[in-house]
């Protein structure tokens, strides 16, 4: 089975992921691919502690997670894969992590970011990353929680004026 949802969420493991997506897609494994969190033991422990028992949690660098997927150890599981940014999603795909669809969940504002919906704000480099990723195959949509309508990411950016 392996990957059932791949999501960019700058908050990584949090309420919407645990309470809305995990039950909706019946995930039994959450994988966080993030170089910063992989090196921060407190944050790592906190995230692990928030996940209900019975759900496997793997937190690693992009390279570690890519190696894990190529080992096929996760194949029997229903995996929810999380990235914090468009850059990480693109890097992960280049490293061979085999996701075929990408959900834009929470990508909140920052300097130079244009807000496109309640939960998505992008800048030029996000657009470039996602465009490069799309060319490689994955279908990219935005959908914050399962009850929101899924929207093609191109629809989101059509008003961005570029």
């Amino acid at each position, binding site marked *: 089975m392996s990957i059932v949802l791949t999501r960019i969420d700058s908050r990584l493991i949090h*309420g919407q992921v645990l309470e*809305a997506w995990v039950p909706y897609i019946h995930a039994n494994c959450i994988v966080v691919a993030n170089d910063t969190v992989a090196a921060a033991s407190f944050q790592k*422990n906190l995230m692990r502690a928030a996940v209900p028992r019975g759900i496997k949690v793997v937190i690693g660098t992009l390279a570690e997670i890519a190696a894990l997927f190529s080992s096929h150890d996760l194949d029997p599981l229903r995996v929810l894969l999380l990235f914090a940014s468009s850059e990480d999603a693109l890097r992960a795909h280049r490293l061979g992590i085999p996701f075929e669809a990408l959900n834009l969940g929470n990508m909140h504002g920052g300097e130079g970011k244009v807000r496109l919906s309640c939960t998505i704000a992008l800048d030029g480099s996000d657009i470039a990353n996602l465009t490069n990723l799309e060319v490689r195959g994955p279908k990219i949509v935005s959908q914050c*929680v*399962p009850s929101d309508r899924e929207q093609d990411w191109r629809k989101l950016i059509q008003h961005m004026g570029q």
Partner: protein
Amino acid sequence: MIGLVIATHANLGAEILLATEMIIGALSQARAVGIRKEDSVEEIRSAVAGAIDDVSDNEGVIVMTDMFGGTPSNISLAFLEPDRVEVLTGVNLPMVLKFFNSQEGLSLAELALLLQSYGQQGITLPSQFLNR
């Protein structure tokens, strides 16, 4: 589907429902009743009765209240009825989220019992299990 009423002092219940929607999206069969200082017992009773009615189908209703012994709880307890209305006190967000995520196949009594224990587990002292 089992219905949910949250009966509290002031707007606590309505805000808990808003917080729940922020996390899991739009909710159905849920109502909040908030009592105000000026409300009479009769007004509160009829607000709780109306809310229970609104969210009822044949599977019953759980009324969550903010505190055992408080007025919303005292008045709600008058509606206790096996298989139709169950009252759970000490409402918190984990309990409400679990309500919407765990209904399938559970009877009213089973769901109430599960939510009681889940709500208690939702209270943690992270310094006991996290190492900085």
